[in-house]
């Protein structure tokens, strides 16, 4: 074998040896797993999201359940120990950032889902203080209120991004859901507002219906490669329309998936389900297979293929637009 393949990329301003990294997941809860990810070659570590809503709810619920029965009955004025060090806030998360920073040499990207304006800013600041190298703003929001116009949702996200950017000096990525009515426009606005990267796309917990019990059961299935298609399209559309980096998350399971995403315009490729299934070492497998494929196809660097199949550069841009559906249908009829 000759020189190692140049897989390097630039994401969020970091010069990375290659684009593969774990996406936001509970894998980071274990330092051991984090270290195994680094050993497998991960270009960065992405923390799972800190959910402000969950923190607030847990604070209230925990204190409530500890307090509500206290001071009621003469034999038991309380039912729980009162440990002095008791963190119901983001402290555990912040401590884990610090621990991971200590344990690995690659960039550590923290992730945040806020509910209040103050929460976004406050937690972003504390994540930076805890040592995060970059931040993902996980705009995980379901607009269910019929009174709320789309513009309000977009404006709020832009406001959050701007304030966070003013507060921290580390790069900030915005992780989007596909549910924006004019995603290309909104993406450019985020770009202008200072986003250092856009991550496509968040995967929501999906409520399912139990028809026997007449119950709604929330589930989050691991992804599969078919989910990549939605991302490919939007990577291709946004590539070169925005100044900031693009990352893909959701549906990358193989080296070929990764290559597709990069050709569509991704600077970074995040994997979760594949690593949960295959373990941290699977990242190395994908990386090796990418190299092999590129060698076999006589690529010299990743840069060559980055965005090669984007809307701007692919031989048949219309294929990414509405025509796509029509032609498939016609082809089927023929």
């Amino acid at each position, binding site marked *: 074998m000759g020189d190692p393949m140049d897989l390097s990329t630039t994401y969020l301003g970091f010069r990375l040896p290659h684009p593969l990294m774990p996406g936001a997941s509970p894998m980071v*809860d274990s330092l051991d797993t984090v270290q195994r990810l680094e050993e497998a070659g991960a270009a960065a570590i992405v923390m799972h999201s800190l959910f402000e809503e969950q923190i607030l709810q847990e604070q209230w619920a*925990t204190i409530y359940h500890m307090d509500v*029965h206290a001071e009621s009955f003469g034999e038991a004025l309380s039912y729980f*120990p009162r440990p002095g060090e008791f963190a119901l806030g983001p402290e555990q998360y912040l401590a884990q950032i610090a621990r991971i920073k200590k344990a690995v040499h690659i960039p550590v990207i923290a992730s945040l889902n806020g509910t209040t304006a103050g929460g976004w800013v406050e937690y972003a600041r504390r994540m930076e203080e805890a040592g995060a190298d970059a931040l993902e703003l996980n705009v995980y929001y379901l607009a269910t209120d019929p009174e709320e116009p789309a513009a309000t949702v977009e404006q709020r996200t832009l406001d959050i991004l701007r304030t966070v950017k003013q507060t921290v000096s580390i790069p900030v990525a915005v992780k989007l859901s596909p549910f924006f009515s004019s995603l290309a426009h909104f993406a450019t606005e985020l770009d202008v507002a200072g986003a250092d990267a856009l991550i496509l796309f968040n995967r929501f917990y999906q409520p399912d219906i139990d028809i026997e019990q007449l119950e709604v059961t929330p589930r989050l299935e691991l992804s599969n490669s078919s989910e990549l298609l939605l991302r490919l399209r939007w990577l291709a559309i946004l590539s070169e329309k925005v100044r900031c980096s693009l990352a893909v998350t959701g549906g990358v399971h193989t080296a070929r998936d990764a290559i597709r995403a990069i050709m569509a315009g991704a600077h970074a490729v995040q994997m979760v389900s594949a690593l949960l299934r295959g373990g941290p070492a699977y990242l190395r497998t994908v990386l090796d297979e990418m190299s092999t494929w590129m060698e076999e196809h006589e690529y010299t660097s990743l840069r060559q293929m980055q965005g090669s199949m984007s809307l701007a550069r692919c031989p048949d841009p219309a294929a990414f637009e509405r025509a796509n559906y029509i032609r498939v249908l016609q082809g089927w009829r023929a």
Partner: protein
Amino acid sequence: MSASPQRRMVTVDGNEATASVAYRASEVIAIYPITPSSPMGEFADEWAAEGMPNIWGTVPQVVEMQSEGGAAGAVHGALQAGALSTTFTASQGLLLMIPNMYKIAGELTAYAMHVAARTLATHALSIFGDQSDVMACRQTGFALLVSGSVQEAHDFAAIAHAATLRARVPFLHFFDGYRTSHEVNKIDLLADEDLRALLPEDLIEAHRRRALTPDRPVLRGTAQNPDTFFQAREAINPFYLAVPEIVQRTMDRFAEVTGRSYHLFDYVGHPEAERVIVLMGSGAETVHETVEWLRGHDEKVGLLKVRLYRPFAAADFIAALPRTVQAIAVLDRTKEPGALGEPLYLDVVTTLREAGEDGTAPFAADPKVIGGRYGLSSKEFTPAMVIATFAELAKTRPKRHFTIGITDDVTGLSLPYDADIDIEPAEVTRAVFFGLGADGTVGANKNSIKIIGEETENHAQGYFVYDSKKSGAMTISHLRFGPRPIRSTYLIRRANFVACHQFPFMERYDVLGYAAPGAVFLLNAPSGPEQVWDHLPRDVQEQIIERGLKFYAIDALDVAKRTGMGGRINSIMQTCFFAISGVLPRDEAIAKIKEAIQKTYGRKGEEVVRRNWQAVDETLAHLHEVKVPAGTTAARARPALVPQTAPDFVKRVSAVMMAGQGDLLPVSAFPPDGTWPVGTSQWEKRNIANEIPEWDPDICIQCNKCVFVCPHAVIRAKIFQPDGLLDAAPPTFKTMPYRSQELKGYLYALQVSPEDCTGCSLCVMVCPAKDKANPKHKSINMAPQPPLREQERENWEFFLRLPEFDRTRLKQDVKDSQFLVPLFEFSGACAGCGETPYVKLMTQLYGDRALIANATGCSSIYGGNLPTTPYTTNRDGRGPAWSNSLFEDNAEFGLGMRLAVDTLAEQARDLLTRLAPDLDPDLVTGLLTADQSNEAGIAAQRERVAGLRRRLERLVGPETRRLDLLVDYLVRKSVWIVGGDGWAYDIGYGGLDHVLALGRDVNVLVLDTEVYSNTGGQQSKATPRGAAAKFASAGKPTAKKDLAMLAMTYGNIYVARVAFGAKDAQTVRAFLEADSYPGPSLILAYSPCIAHGYDLAYGAEQQKLAVDSGYWPLLRFDPRRGAEGKNPLQLDSGAPKIDLAKFAYNETRFRMVENVDRLRAHDLMEAARQDVRARYRAYEELAKMPVNGKAAAGE
């Protein structure tokens, strides 16, 4: 030495004040929870967990033992091996320590222990305070040092630890349980330097040098014989003779260090007093206050406070009394039936007699001495009683032996007193607050005391009266503030501020009975300031007008809801108190309240702080003064607590206790032996539920699951033939056709008792029947109680009158079991209690022939805490016979019942055989060979017994009479031994193990909440790995003991693990098999508990998760299967199918470990997953094991 600059004023309770010293002066602390001393151990454990050092810079080792006996043993060992050690206990716990106390004293060991003195269980258990426990230790050789206030408890703890080092006689320092242990007061906190100054290094070195060590080996604990024991025992005398002087020197040294001076006996009062009261403990504070008041009225009275009770320093006692004394009343807070007098009285009489004989008595004339009992079980001891005692002493022929504080109309011993006397100074602000446990009133009041006590020059005192019930529990807070130290160790009777935080109390209790004329009255009412007046009962309106009260109202619940506080109205009502009372300037008070909230929750939850602050900010806008009209407007008076139809005893006794007026009942009202009527909880309609279940028959599938899970037996099902019965039904009474092939034409009714429901909503949660078009509507739905109250009460009464279905015709399954009448109803258990559904099921199945031995704990408290009794009878007057002996002895107690029942049954059979010639031979054969393995068999036997009884009436002779008394024993009795995991896994394990091993036919029901629930969530050996509990605040590092596995190893014990919320059918089967198994049976019943930290409405859901995650595998081990060549073990749940964390992190007990240390939580969870897998594998292997060499035949 001058006062240390580091010393500061704090407001703490007696337990914390004591533990603060004991902890800092100890190296090894062995503990066991027992009310009211548990908080001392908890403080020690928490401080150790936080790494707080003692005064020598090391963190004491704190270890929870399996019983107080275990704690005493551990302490003894630690002392022998050279450590400084302590423990904390009370009551029965202290009794369990006695054997070791003899040893520790006999070996002249420097040691101080601390006791929150509590009543010993006699005719009844009482968690409250008196000195009967300590009095049972007089003979052990311990020095007994007694304190009477929070400050003294703090100070005397230090004096005890110091004096014992010099004296080498061990010290028991005690104070009154609750009155001192739980009273919050402002004290001067001893700094570490103070303690170091009192505990000299050389004496600690001497203690170390006496240690057992292989480097300088000696031997202790020999066996001695008649030749030597006696002399060797007398060799200790010099040490005891030296104790008083050592204690006085220590007190003098203490005074040098702190400026607070104490003596072996402290005299207070007129220097030429003629009448003197002698007593010890918290009551001395009340006498102190009263004596000063009487001196102001020129009375020559005095008080002698006993500080060092053992050894009793006779000369110091004589010297402390004024020479002018003519009459002495000695008050004892204990009772010794059959004695010439109580202990302190006898000591005083002996002292005076000996001094008289020796010629050392300085008195002009021999003082007359009388002895009285007071304050048993925290009975109030007030200035009025002190005045009555002095009045008695003034008589020429006072009662030599008396009681004070009660009305003894049986032996006439009690002194009368004028209850209206009020000597409290005007400078003291007195405030009384009525609240619910769940609304946070007490916590807020404790904060208020801290604010006033620590932020102002004022002295502050708080004492809190709690309910005997665990659900809907009322609390009454008594707060005093004033410029001088507060000695009033009794409840407030005339308050200048009365707050009622729950409107329904106005209907139930005489809240304003506490209000002094001109007082402020603050009411949390759901109606606005314009309407509130009209919603008050007439007698309350009268009180407000007659006493000229200033009346304020707020809808605190509304403010709480709008600020996201749920039902927590504490901060809101606290803000109102400060705003109205003017104890502090308003703005300053609000700032302090917010600061206190920040201090309490700041580190744990910004959100909690934010919501509380918002609530505080919004309060004042909603607080209104109510214009009091000149006359009453309501026609409605406070309703009677029990209806006229209640039994006489309930009306005469129980109802008075329910109203909180039990103090008024005379001695004659009570059964002398602790025997109480059953079935009285039905009269205590507490109306504590805001919402109750409402039945929609249209979608009901008649599964009876709601009935099964109801912890309070308030939702019941019946099937009956209409036969015109419904003609008399109230208009809203609901029925539906019963779905059954066999019982055509029957109706099914499901009925809720609206006034007994606690509103836990477990029934709604388990209801599987949903409206297909609108699935959030179930067959049972929670609906507001008040609009349903009247109609459902009528319906309930009608429902109860409907006939019961013949129990012999019911199937033995979940559904049919719930047509059986529960003989355990409306207990005081927590809303959503996970234990009581099991207890209820047992009474449904066997209640009419069950004897229950109940270990002390939650189940004995909700089972037998007065005023009312939840165990009840069926229509034939049969029902469970229930008793609680102790905590540790329950298995043995139950075994004793079994032995008695067996011997009486054997005698009955024997007599029957002997009398057979005079009886119908078929009847006799039938009686002797009856198959009583099912309900039909039992019913048939009852018939035969009735026949026999009729026949016996016609016979004469002594054997006939004996048999007549015993015939009921021919019906099989079911003996149930019930208790919690603290009993079964820890303190009672030895006995349980032995009783199970004996092979007798007893059924053991372990209500496994995995912690000591009743005393507040301390870990037991049933606590799972990774859960936080008291004494395991960082998460229990070791796995749960597998009691099922241990019991299975015997081979002849029926064992089941059940969880009703996961698989109710398996629970029912286990209960049936346990009873039918003719040997010992053990049912381990998973019981959700408030100590798990989640909304118990989800209790059944959590049980499912517990089973699905393998956390609580279901199994039955039936030795009878072994006899059939089958493997006795059947696993009733499959391999773990969900992650343990899915179950665990719904509960605060697991989550809080994560909150403290995520990595540790992660490791513990991983280990717990291994536990679960390993246990399942082990069970699985066992279930597959070949039986008698053959592969197991499964089912």
